């Protein structure tokens, strides 16, 4: 299934792989946000087929995993401030969808992940990253752009070490997979090409799917594991079927 020409979805065993397609920067604008959210929503609707909830891998083709917001789109509008607002709202919605997703999630950082692209990767339950090229880069300080509250919250919860977070956010450090892995920001650095990174992510996802966890339980536990981030994004997305609470 392809969603526009922006992302493709395939099954590999119990794993659903969403791939940001094409050789470009996979900039997050309304079209790509919509495509990814649609693909993710489709997983919610039919997550498994008797084999348990499955798992998600988000990957990308080409040199970039995701290079951040679509600033060209924002600039092109009559009110850039409104367009930024729209992108931030869409990002919060996507983050809510991922936090509420009833299956484990793995980001395959196949190339550069910058700004909101870096934050998107870190929003997954596990992150594997290509060792031979590509950086994690919170580009905002170099670009002269302030960091929104919900992004700060995401980084505080996912990169709790103050020194690592400072280096990423305040020093604008371009972190290789080796460094990010050593510092606990990503789970593994994977040698080889894009396809090798995706395969490694699929293997991680397959292991998680094999646990046979109840998907809604995974989602609820995730929300209480990252409560500050969930509280900042849950008004924007992550619709879940009503479920009795303990």
């Amino acid at each position, binding site marked *: 299934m392809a969603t526009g020409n922006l992302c493709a979805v395939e099954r590999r065993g119990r794993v659903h792989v969403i791939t940001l397609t094409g050789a470009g920067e996979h900039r997050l604008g309304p079209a790509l946000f919509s495509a990814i959210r649609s693909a993710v929503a489709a997983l919610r609707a039919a997550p498994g087929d008797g084999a348990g909830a499955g798992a998600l891998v988000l990957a990308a083709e080409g040199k970039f995993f995701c290079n951040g917001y679509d600033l060209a789109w924002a600039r092109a509008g009559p009110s850039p*401030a409104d367009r930024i607002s729209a992108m931030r709202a869409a990002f919060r919605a996507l983050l809510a969808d991922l936090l509420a997703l009833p299956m484990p999630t793995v980001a395959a950082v196949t190339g550069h992940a910058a700004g909101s692209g870096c934050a998107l990767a870190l929003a997954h339950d596990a992150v594997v990253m290509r060792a031979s090229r590509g950086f994690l880069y919170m580009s905002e*300080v170099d670009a*002269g752009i302030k*960091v*929104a509250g919900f992004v700060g919250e995401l980084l505080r919860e996912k990169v709790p*070490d103050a*020194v690592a977070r*400072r280096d990423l956010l*305040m020093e604008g450090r371009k972190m290789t997979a080796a460094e990010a892995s050593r510092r606990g920001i990503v789970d593994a650095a994977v040698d080889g090409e894009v396809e090798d990174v995706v395969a490694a992510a699929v293997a991680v996802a397959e292991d998680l799917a094999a646990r046979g966890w109840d998907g809604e339980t995974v989602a609820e536990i995730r929300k209480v594991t990252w409560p500050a981030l969930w509280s900042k994004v849950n008004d924007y997305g992550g619709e879940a079927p009503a479920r009795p609470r303990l």
Partner: protein
Amino acid sequence: MCTLEQRGRVFVLTLTGDGEHRLGHALISSLRSAIASAAEAAAKAGPGAALVTVGEGRFFSNGLDIGWAGTSRARLGELVDALRPLAADLLALPMPTVAALTGHASAGGFLLALCHDYRIMRGDRGVLYMSEVDIGLPLPPYFGAVLRAKITSANALRDVALRGKKVKAAEGKEMGIVDAVYPSAAETAAEAFKFAEQLAARKWNGGVYASIRMSMFPEACRSVGIVEESDEEKRKHFASKL
């Protein structure tokens, strides 16, 4: 009490004299003035600046002037209250900040060091020491907030705050409190300055840098009295950059 000099893009704030650089009203006031001057000068000069803070002699700072406070709880309370806006000045400063720890930093002095973005310390002598538990003084809430923001290893935080551990540079590095260690005071000061130059050379917009710093530590910023910038204000700024 203190001097401020500008060397290229780097502002060097020196706590002068061979004493303990005890933080009393006069020194706190001087430091605040100097920091404000640095911010003003940097605003005029355009993007790309950094601050290095260093103490002459054996101490970075040995904390609040409890000698002046004596047995007066009121006076001690005054000093605690006076230090808070200095902490705020540092956490809101529109440029990167480096503490060159060529001497001991304890209690309020350690807090000041923690309010900097980076800590470069001599390895041959000197300790970082939150002495309050040993001398029977409580930690003001804003001290707690800054400690929690900057020392994120639970064990390191426990050791510093609850055990009054005297942390030497090498161990400080392992605990995530010290960023780099050099063998002597002179090298520490020189390397801190060099590092500050590198940070200044990134030519970061000061207001953006400070905003990003504050988005890293919102609780600590609130606790020292900094008013949080709204997402709305940040969005307007973003739009203006496009």
